[in-house]
């Protein structure tokens, strides 16, 4: 093998070796990453009006709830307790501990039910199981379905 070929092979090998540590390895723990993100999001937009940024946060929360609800109700398995557990965790990621008292939760659920394109009986059953006798929750779910 000529010297030029050896050099080219060596360069290629070195270069390829340098690329071997491929993908980004997951950073630290999820919780510390999430908390750093919260500071970043807070500290990085002080000049946007609080109502404007809150609307965005509400919208993002509703969207996440809607996406999860849509997938959950369409899946063939899953208990309501499981749904509430995951909903609780999703709400915490958005800074909410008591999702049952949050209007946007139910609006998001309504949006999810519409996205899932369920039949009326299924929608009624799911709405009933989540809202119980609370007319405010029912109304919020309907608001989401009409959004």
């Amino acid at each position, binding site marked *: 093998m000529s010297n030029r070929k050896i050099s080219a092979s060596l360069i290629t090998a070195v270069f390829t070796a340098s690329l071997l540590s*491929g993908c980004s390895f997951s950073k630290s723990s999820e919780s510390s990453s999430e908390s750093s*993100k919260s500071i970043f999001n807070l500290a990085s937009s002080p000049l946007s009006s609080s109502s404007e940024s*809150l609307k965005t946060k509400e919208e993002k929360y509703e969207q996440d709830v809607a996406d999860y609800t849509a997938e959950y109700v369409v899946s063939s398995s899953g208990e309501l307790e499981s749904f*509430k557990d995951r909903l609780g965790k999703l709400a915490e990621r958005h800074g909410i501990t008591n999702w*049952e008292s949050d209007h946007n939760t139910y609006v998001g659920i309504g949006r999810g039910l519409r996205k899932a394109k369920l039949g009326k009986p299924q929608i009624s059953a799911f709405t009933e199981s989540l809202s119980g006798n609370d007319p405010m929750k029912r109304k919020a779910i309907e608001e989401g379905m009409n959004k």
Partner: protein
Amino acid sequence: MRSFLELRHACPVCVLLLALCFPGTPFGASRTFEYLCINASEGSASGGHAAIKFGGDVFHFQHVPPGLLRITKEDFGWFRFQYGYQENRTIRSHSIEVSEETFKWLNETFNRRLLVQDEQFAALDAMDGDLRLIQALQNSAAQRNSNSPSDDAPDLTLKALGYFFAERWQPQPARPLSAEPVPVSSLLQTLKAAIPARYGEDFLATKQRQTWNRLLTLKPEPREPAELDIAEDRFSPAGYSFAQHYVDLLTDLAALEVLARAIPPKRDAIIRAEIPEFRLTREAVAALDRYRQTLTADLLRLLSSERTDWGYPLLAGIARLHALERSIASGRLAILDRYPAAESTSSARDEAGSALISALFERTRQAYTSAKSGLISAQPLDERRYGQLEVSANLFLETRRGMVQPHAARLLQVDMTPSRPAAASLIALPLTAEQLAGYRQALTTRREAYLTKLMSLYGYNLMARNCVTEIFRVINQAIAKRLEENGEPRDADTELARITAESERLLGGYVDETSLNLIPFVSFQTVGKSYRVRSTEELLPYREEHIRQAYHQAMPFLVDMEESNVISSAIYRWHGDDAAFLFFTQDAVWSRPILGSFNLAVALGQTLTGLFALPWDSGENLRKSLKGVFVSIPELFFFNIRKGSFPLLPPIDPAD
């Protein structure tokens, strides 16, 4: 010239032909999504990384233990901060023009992949949690049987319990009120007094008994075999695990005890500060008072909630109620301490310099002022806005402390919700040792099978399936599925041709997930040649941005000389995360071999140090030195990988 609108009415066929010839033109609203390429550097993803961006959201795949590719979604500002600032890497982006419908469909595709995978990984985490709890219950039982109760008895960590208990909480089925005088919260006594009218006289005692009994009936029951029937595009709920159920019920019991015994929060749970910014106007006090009433009503409703995990919001809510009471009574803001630990761990000031800490302080002060002014808006205060006030006030106080006492700042550890944890002893379940062992064995087998299935779906392979190839694999798979849903028959012989054609229609071209496209910068070039790229952009990394800023204040060649090495650099401070090196080599190509040889010498020096230190540091220095050698060698051949990183950089918005 007649406008397109007039043409549309005049000649629909012509319009259609024009639209087909010029996709993405004003006829159909067009949007762009971005393909991002992050360049190589020391550290994880040394060969570079790739991501796809829709609006403000970035999806990218990460290599997670134990060898899986997992999709993640990040806000672009945060993504750029991590890679462009902390890791000091250049981010290049191609903006790819597509129709509105294609944008939404592709965004939804990646979002759905995220949802499906998150649930699958949650199921794996749930199994791990169950195994840990079973192990803890076995250890606890073994200790009891040996009649040697110990302070090292296994316990769990419960969120928000740390606002009320400093030591480990010991649950008991019915704990009488202590004869010793203990601090009692009048606020909680008032709250407790409202319960009989709403729920009946013995409600708390009954609820405590019922919750206790419910916990005792828990068993780590095996799930259905369908659990293993998972697929990349099938959503399977993770389920409510035994461990999560146990923790939730234990937290419920803790919350009931706090309420029943009217235990006030610990003194250090609530922060107050005698600073002008914490003074409250009459309107703000009135707003907080209204929120206190809302929160009180919510907490009472929580006691009858059908969700099993009502204990945590009850604990957090009770703690907040006390903070609100103090704010209202004193006219000065009192808030929960949102940091999980009292000790500081960050020395951000050293990393960033006083100018940056000052900027961060100013930013958090503005954020706090904005959140505080939101108290008197027309919209009633809710948990989201009150939480924002809490977080912003915590950050403001911390950065304020950081201005005066650099090492006291705990900048990066605020929780998303009030979560100060504390330890709680386990409650033994009426399960024999044999039963626990049996459950553990069955769960271990199930977990192994599940992990094997996950590996078959998402196993990472540097040369065949990595963070770059996965992006195109998701796109191409989605196109194949779309064709199938549109009624096109599946035919292995022509499938690739049909996917290619559809990809060209939707995206302007086709990029496959094989060949050299597995390398980030190669894929970036391929995307540039194949997809419908409207524009290409390069976002400068942190160091480069600051060098360019410095050019305005000093002669460029002096700045370049100062920033050429770690000793004189005003921007970079060497830290333990980077292997030792002397010269930056990303700035000029011609000098790389010479500067690289010095870097290699430093790395070899660190190797010698590492060898001597091996018995004491478990090979830490040696590992770093080998990393230094690894990234220095390419420099001898004019290649640059190392950029120098800034891991302690305080969170700042790269847009500012």
